[in-house]
Each structure stands twice: as structure tokens, then as C-alpha cells.
């Protein structure tokens, strides 16, 4: 890493972990915790979507995995007495596993065909949640306890959220820690040979096969990682709202995950994070426009895509003098 990048990273971490909580404490705008926690969690989901873009697949189905992860956590906690901390990885792994089963057949599709199937996936997930007895239909699962204490070998690492003076801050810190970890994984994938292989898939699958890449395996692996990200973001969302319904994540959410990636930039690891922040905040700020909120939001998005088709982050390249 170049020193300028290292410095940028250090500043980012400082801002996220120290400055934001300090500012919020100073201004008393505690509501921002919820907004920023949502941005962090959504950007984990979009990181997954971004990764499927990276192998040349348009993924409009991340909402399905967020929903799935959320339900797995809710069910395990309320019906099997699992700790939240155990359901966090389990929710992600469950999604990864399911996505392997779904991915094997559908990842052979490309372009708009794959996109359409993933779009349907979210709806299928919603209908499944409505139909299954274990998910409790339209009534959903409510009164999910807050995350308990996390202790390893008798040492309490994280106290019980229910006993905290400021659980909002705790959720915020949990979400941004997960976000940083997810993007570290993403960065590492992209900058290792794994990323090089993904780019080979994105640019020419036939040629990739001819040089011996097991394209089917790689596609499924990437999709499973992507869905894991979707799952863990769902788990934490549910923990925050302490409830989950079939409509907790719908097609709109899936579309949004994809838009965050577009707006941020598909060739930048930080793209989905920046896109999520911009769009989520943009939408929030526009609530003052009331009835015109959607109109302004959509127009701004169209303008953005026309002016910066490679995403907001391509501005940096332009300024930096790269073509």
C-alpha cells in the first residue's frame, strides 16, 4: 500500500470509530446512530453484490439472503436458545450454503437472465417465510432478545446489550467493525490472485476455462461469499429491530443493494460503501421534500449515472489524472 492510501485508511478508521461517536455525543443527535448503523450493515450486503459484479454477474437478490440470515438468527435465538453471537456466523454460513445450492444451476446464466432469476429470488424468500410454520407466517418473529454477553473462557469481551446504558452505540460499533472486516476481506480478494481470476471470469469465461480455471467452482465460491455478507447484515438488522417479518427485506431492498454498487463504482473496492452512504443519506435528507422525495431522488440518480457512469469514486481518478 502506498503511504497516501495508508493515511487515508487511518483517517477513515479514526473517523468511524472515534470521531463519529464523539460528534454524536457532542451534538446529542442519537438518531444518527441508527442511520449510520444501517449504512454500515447495508454496505456489507452491497459488498457481496459488488463481488458478484466482479465475476460479471448482476445480482439483484441480496435481499433474499439478508432475510434468510435474519430468520436463521431469530429462529435459533427464540426457539433453540442460541446466543446472538453464535447465530451471527451461523446465519451467514446458512446463507452461503443455500446459495451454493441455488448458485450451481443459476450461475450458468449470464447477463439479464441471471439478473432476472436473482430478482425473483427475493420474492421466493418472502413467500417461503410467509408459508413456513417455523417462520410464523405474516406475524413474523417478535420479542427477539438483545445480544447477550459474549465471553470466551470466562472473560467477558462484550457485555450484555440489555444492561448497557447506550446499546445504540454498541450496535453502531458492532456494525462498523463488521463492515471494516468485510471490506478488508473484499480488498484482500481483489488484490490477490483470487481477484485476478475473478477478473478473468468477468472478461471472458470461455478463455478462463481454456486456461484451466474451474469457472463453475469459482462462480459458486464467489456467490457463497457474497451471500454470506448478505446473511450477516440481515442477522444484525434483526437484532436491532428485535423482530423480523417476511417483508423485512423485499425486492426494493435487493434493487437498492445493486444501486449502491453502481453509484459508488464497480471498479473500486470502496465503491459499494460510498454508494450506500450517499444514497441512504441522500434519501434521508430528501424526506423534507415530502411528495417529491422519490422524484428528486430518481432524477439525481439518473443525472449521477450520466455524469459519472463509472461511479462516484471515478471522480478520484479524474482528479488524480488517471484516464
Amino acid at each position: 500500500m502506498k503511504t497516501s492510501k495508508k493515511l487515508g485508511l487511518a483517517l477513515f478508521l479514526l473517523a468511524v470509530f472515534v470521531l463519529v461517536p464523539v460528534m454524536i455525543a457532542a451534538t446529542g443527535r442519537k438518531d444518527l446512530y441508527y442511520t449510520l448503523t444501517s449504512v454500515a450493515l447495508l454496505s456489507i450486503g452491497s459488498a457481496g453484490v459488488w463481488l458478484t459484479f466482479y465475476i460479471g454477474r448482476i445480482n439483484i437478490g441480496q435481499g433474499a439472503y439478508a432475510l434468510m440470515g435474519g430468520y436463521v438468527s431469530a429462529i435459533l435465538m427464540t426457539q433453540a436458545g442460541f446466543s446472538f453471537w453464535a447465530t451471527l456466523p451461523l446465519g451467514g454460513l446458512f446463507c452461503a450454503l443455500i446459495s451454493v445450492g441455488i448458485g450451481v444451476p443459476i450461475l450458468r446464466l449470464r447477463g439479464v437472465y441471471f439478473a432476472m432469476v436473482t430478482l425473483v429470488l427475493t420474492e421466493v424468500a418472502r413467500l417461503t417465510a410467509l408459508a413456513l410454520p417455523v417462520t410464523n407466517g405474516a406475524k413474523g418473529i417478535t420479542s427477539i432478545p438483545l445480544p447477550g454477553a459474549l465471553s470466551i473462557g470466562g472473560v467477558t469481551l462484550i457485555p450484555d446489550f440489555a444492561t448497557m446504558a447506550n446499546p445504540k452505540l454498541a450496535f453502531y460499533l458492532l456494525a462498523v467493525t463488521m463492515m471494516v472486516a468485510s471490506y478488508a476481506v473484499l480488498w484482500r480478494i481483489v488484490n490477490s490472485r483470487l481477484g485476478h481470476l475473478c477478473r478473468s471470469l468477468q472478461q471472458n469465461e470461455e478463455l478462463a476455462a481454456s486456461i484451466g480455471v474451474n469457472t463453475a467452482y469459482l462462480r459458486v465460491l464467489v456467490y457463497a461469499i457474497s451471500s454470506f455478507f448478505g446473511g450477516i447484515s440481515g442477522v444484525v438488522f434483526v437484532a436491532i429491530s428485535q423482530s423480523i417479518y417476511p417483508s423485512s427485506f423485499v425486492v426494493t431492498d435487493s434493487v437498492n443493494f445493486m444501486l449502491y454498487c453502481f453509484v459508488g463504482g464497480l471498479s473500486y473496492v470502496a465503491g459499494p460503501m460510498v454508494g450506500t452512504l450517499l444514497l441512504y443519506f441522500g434519501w434521508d435528507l430528501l424526506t423534507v421534500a415530502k411528495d417529491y422525495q422519490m422524484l428528486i431522488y430518481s432524477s439525481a440518480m439518473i443525472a449521477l449515472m450520466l455524469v459519472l457512469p463509472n461511479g462516484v469514486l471515478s471522480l478520484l481518478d479524474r482528479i488524480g489524472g488517471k484516464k
Partner: protein
Amino acid sequence: MTAILQVKGITKRYGGLTAVNAVSFDVQKGEILSVIGPNGAGKSTLFKLISSFVPTSGGEVLFNGTRISDLAPHKVARMGVVRTFQETTIFKSMTVRENIIVAHHLRSKSSLFGFFIGSSQARADEAEFGASADEIVDFLGLQAIRHELASNLPQGHLRALGMAIGLATKPTILLLDEPFAGMNHDETMTMVANVRRLRDERGLTVLLVEHDMPAVMKISDRIVVINFGEKIAEGTPAQIQANPKVIEAYLGSEDAAIGL
């Protein structure tokens, strides 16, 4: 001596069209064998069958006595049978060197997870791929365009890059589909010399499809002629040039295309 590659009655049907019809021939180790025939004769389809990019409709291909037909293409590549594409097929948004490096995939000793965490084996692999890529660049004389983005290259260089990608897999048999297409005379002669050096210096077996008859006659040990999906002749360049069936097939399309 048994042949390194045996093509036995291989057939490919697309609906009602038989693109390749019961074609058989053997390839000896270290041989340069050309497949020629008019447009649409089934040459590319034959290569796709050998490299197992399309399933067969009949017959089989044996590599060192083992059946390779209908295996996944990456498995056949792993065994050492690798094709290049007739269409310019490269990774467009990578540089020449990156194209060649990624094509070293089959030589990875590290697992994907190893690459992810940057294990010592992974780093050794990367170093090896880089060195080997540079060596291939030198071998094919591509030094000047090493760091050029592939999408910026002219046709002649793209063909050379296609071959470089094939070489990076360290094949035993390399199938080149029209490797000289879009090259001028000098470029073709350089590539002809390169293909010969591959065989002479590295013991590669080379199959190629080509329309450039002077180049074919110059480079080939033997030639297989395909017309309407069927093999109509097989022999040395001299035998093929004198074969009345071949002359007829070619006179039907292009006058004296066979270079008589």
C-alpha cells in the same frame, strides 16, 4: 510408438447439420499437424471437440490412451491439451503481462485460500508466474508491449498474445485456431518460426488450423484436409498439394488457394 493423440470417428451434429462427421486421425508426439479446409468445413468444431469445449455426438478422442472427450474443458486443459481461439480471445482489460500471468493458473501449487491469506507457497507461485510470463514475453518478442492494455493492441499482437496465453498453461499439445490470421507477411514468418521453436526447443505437439497456405506448407509435418465435416485427405505437404480430391475441394471455392 503410439500416438499422443488419437481422434477416433469423432462426430458433431448441430440439429440437422453435421459439422464434423466421423473424422479419425492420429497425432505423433512432437509433430506439427495442420488441419485445413474451406470455410465452414468444421475445423474449429474439430478443435472444440478435441479440447472438449463441446460435447461429442459420437466417437472419442484419446490423449496418451486416455479418453478426454466430454470431460470439463478445464480438466482437459489440466491434462495438457489446450486450445487458442479463432476469434481474438483475450482478457481485454488486463495488460499483456497480466493476461499471461493469470493464464498460469494450472501451475498454482497454492490453494485459493492460500492466495487469499498470502501464504509462502502463494508468494512463491506468484514469483514463478511472473518470471515465466516474462520468459514467454521474451520468447514471442512481445517486450515492447508487455505493459500495454490488451484492448489497445492491433490484430497481429492479439494473435501473439493468444498464443502466449496458451503457452502459459504449459501444454503438451497446443491447438492453434488460425494463429496467423490478420498478420502481415513478416509477422506470419516470425510466428511460423516461433511455432517451430516451440516444437524443437520445448517438444510441444502443435495442431493448427490455418488458411494461409504458404505458411501451412512451410510449417507442417503433416496435413489433414476436411471438407463438409469429413476428412478427405491426410499426408505430407507434398502429398496434399498433389492430391486431386484436395485440389477439387479448393478449386470449388478459391482458385489456387492451396498454393500450387
